[in-house]
């Protein structure tokens, strides 16, 4: 492992955060935000070190929050939890099959979207108390910082569905791109000259 792979992951995360904000065509069409960042965290957790995974989760969460109206820092929490949990269990997670990658990506996208929503409601007293809403003069429009909680309703179910589906679609692509980057820029394992598959004795059942 050299420095190229972690750097590529951080640059990839930076670009994906920008794309989430800039590419509005699909969002306009499906009326929900595609979830791209969870796939990045899943890949980091399964193939990179824990410090790299934490850096990717923080960059993704804080970057996304810096372009959003939500409380700054809250978006990084579900991504960080996801990254750490997957990294801790990565030895028992299937990661080479496309279906496995899509499944993990789909579940991760859904969990991040749900987690963000749950955390927002749980932490609301903490994050909204720091705002100047209470001390602002009482006119309906002049309010600094966070006003009310976002409206929860049936429409959110569609957004969570989209987050799961886009996570499932994007994660295998991210795996493919960054495995290629890793294979291109990293030292490769030298093929064994001693043992070769075609010289093994095929044994039957008995």
């Amino acid at each position, binding site marked *: 492992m050299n420095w190229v792979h972690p750097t590529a992951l951080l640059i990839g995360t930076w670009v994906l955060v920008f794309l989430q904000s800039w590419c509005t065509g699909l969002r306009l069409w499906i009326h929900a935000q595609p979830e791209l960042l969870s796939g990045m965290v899943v890949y980091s957790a399964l193939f990179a070190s824990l410090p790299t995974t934490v850096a990717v989760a923080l960059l993704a969460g804080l970057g996304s929050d810096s372009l959003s109206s939500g409380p700054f820092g809250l978006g990084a929490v579900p991504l960080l939890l996801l990254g750490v949990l997957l990294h801790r269990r990565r030895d028992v997670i299937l990661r080479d099959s496309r279906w496995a990658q899509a499944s993990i990506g789909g579940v991760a996208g859904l969990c991040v979207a749900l987690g963000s929503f749950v955390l927002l409601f749980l932490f609301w007293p903490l994050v909204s108390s720091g705002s100047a809403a209470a001390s602002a003069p009482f006119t309906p429009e002049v309010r600094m910082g966070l*006003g009310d909680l976002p409206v929860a309703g049936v429409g959110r179910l569609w957004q969570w569905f989209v987050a799961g589906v886009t996570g499932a679609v994007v994660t295998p692509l991210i795996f493919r791109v960054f495995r290629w980057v890793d294979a291109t820029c990293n030292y490769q394992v030298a093929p064994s000259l001693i043992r070769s598959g075609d010289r093994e004795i095929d044994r039957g059942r008995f």
Partner: protein
Amino acid sequence: MLRKPHAILLAAASLALLVFLVLPEYSRSRIRVAFGTLYLPLFTVAGPSENAVARAAASLTPRSALLDRIHALEQSNEVLRLSVVEHEAATRESDRLRQMLGFAARTSWKLRPARVIGRDPANWWQSIRIDIGTRDGITTNLAVLTPEGLVGRVAEAGPWNSRVVLVGDPNCPVAAALADTSETGIIRGVSGGDIQGSLVELTYLPRNAGLKPGQRVVTSGQGGVFPAGIGIGDLVDSRPAVSGIYAEARVRLAVNLGALAHVWVKLP
């Protein structure tokens, strides 16, 4: 078990996030703007590339279509010029009457155009990013609009770009009024969520307001941010609130907030 350096790393990351969450709004806003400048190079590159694509697409348009478009624009321009002449006469008359009655002189709006360069990456909030900031005279709480109607207000102004919260976002309540009866209420997001983002709710209306579908809703000017008379949308339906004290109505926004490309910021 986590190794000690990893445990320290996770503790430091968690502590940093906790500090971000409990910071006062002003400090949080400064950090957010500073972090957002990380994406400035990408937004700067994206603008010209979008324009180049648009120019390339325009170069493929047939000449006859362009001539038809020029003809339509010339006609529209003539109508607008006549309308301006009519409004100038009305303004002169209004100013003369104001002077006779001793009212303060009416000030004309100073508007600045801006390009929409990004949208809120989260599902729960509705905001856009525009390509002008404090260097262009933008401050927080300025009204943002299009010729069709109200868009929102500037929530955060950085040096090079600004974040605008849209009508219907929890952070952008609007003091509104019915254009024909002048009954006032407050615009906020629709209960239960609206997937398309084209509906908002007008609340705190008097129960006997005489609400009818199709009524025009405009800003009332009583909220401290938006000047009076900017169109918001048309009333769709109404019902009494659960408490029974006031009435609520759904309003279809005049502006398609999902397809904004250019907006105008009203300068003070």
